């Protein structure tokens, strides 16, 4: 909180600390909303410019995290809409699940480099309402309660969305994970 107050008074060092501490959150929120990793850098820069400009207006420094979330989310939504208009494509498209894959055996699972790339694409292809909590969970290691508080959702809803996100990812990658049979 002292850092926020110092940054509000114009301390560059404090602003620097703020960025260090919260850049992960900002980037996670952006990725969760737009679902395009290559867009994250540009939007994050816009977000930090807005934060720098509007920080003096933040009345309660204890609300920094939810305030940052709102700024980042709005910037990501705007950028996503602009990109959609430019490209004429749905950024929020649902990944097409791959069906009729091989049966899963009880074994340790390894995932190769190419599959990692496909996994990222599958995460990008998740509907935003599943992707947002999923990314926050994995970027920030937040609890259901923390995610729910930030997204304004009941804990049960967060849990359900995470279950569905995992299920969709599994379906999207079915048949592409390897079992080494060592278990």
């Amino acid at each position: 909180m002292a850092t926020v107050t110092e940054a509000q008074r114009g301390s560059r060092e404090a602003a620097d600390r703020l960025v260090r501490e919260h850049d992960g959150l900002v980037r996670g929120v952006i990725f969760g909303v737009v679902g395009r990793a290559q867009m994250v850098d540009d939007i994050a820069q816009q977000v930090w410019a807005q934060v720098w400009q509007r920080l003096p207006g933040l009345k309660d420094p204890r609300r920094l995290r939810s305030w940052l979330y709102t700024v980042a989310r709005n910037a990501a939504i705007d950028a996503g809409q602009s990109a959609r208009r430019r490209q004429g494509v749905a950024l929020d498209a649902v990944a097409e699940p791959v069906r009729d894959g091989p049966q899963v055996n009880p074994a340790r699972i390894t995932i190769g480099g190419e599959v990692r790339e496909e996994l990222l694409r599958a995460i990008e292809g998740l509907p935003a309402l599943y992707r947002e909590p999923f990314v926050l969970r994995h970027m920030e290691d937040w609890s259901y309660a923390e995610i729910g508080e930030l997204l304004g959702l009941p804990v049960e809803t967060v849990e359900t969305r995470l279950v569905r996100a995992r299920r969709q990812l599994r379906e999207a990658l079915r048949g592409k994970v390897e079992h080494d049979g060592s278990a």
Partner: protein
Amino acid sequence: MTDPREQLERLISRCLDGEASAEERRDLQRALRRNPSADALFEEYAALDREAGHAIRAAVAAPGIGPVLRRPSIWREAGLALAACVAMLVWLQPLERPSAGGAADASRASWFAPPPTTTDSWTDDARSVERLGVPMADTDREWIVVPGERPGEYLVIEVNRTRTRLLQLRRDF
């Protein structure tokens, strides 16, 4: 009633997220021992989860370097301020009014600039440099964010730009 498969997936998800109680973890352990396909499902979800975390962090985060709002050096700030000042002077320079007789009179080349003198124009410009320390009223604040040399680094420049309202124009009539 919830589908047993869905119940299992929910339990796995809770365990992977560290949200399961001790009793739920024991229940899952028993289910995995009893049912090989449940065990396979758990392994698959665990692997996907682990890799998803790596994939997201690698794709989204600036690798290995914390983001930094770099403090601009005093020389850089002074240079930017000087450039802004010179740009403002150039911008404030009025357009040349076409002469009716065709012969350009040097003393009327500008609507409101003082007649050109024989002194070095650089010394005239230099006077404007004194304005650097003068707080400018009636300005618009803007911020320019320049990406730094490394990913995650930003240079934020605060600019006080004079508003595009020229009182001098009115005095000309």
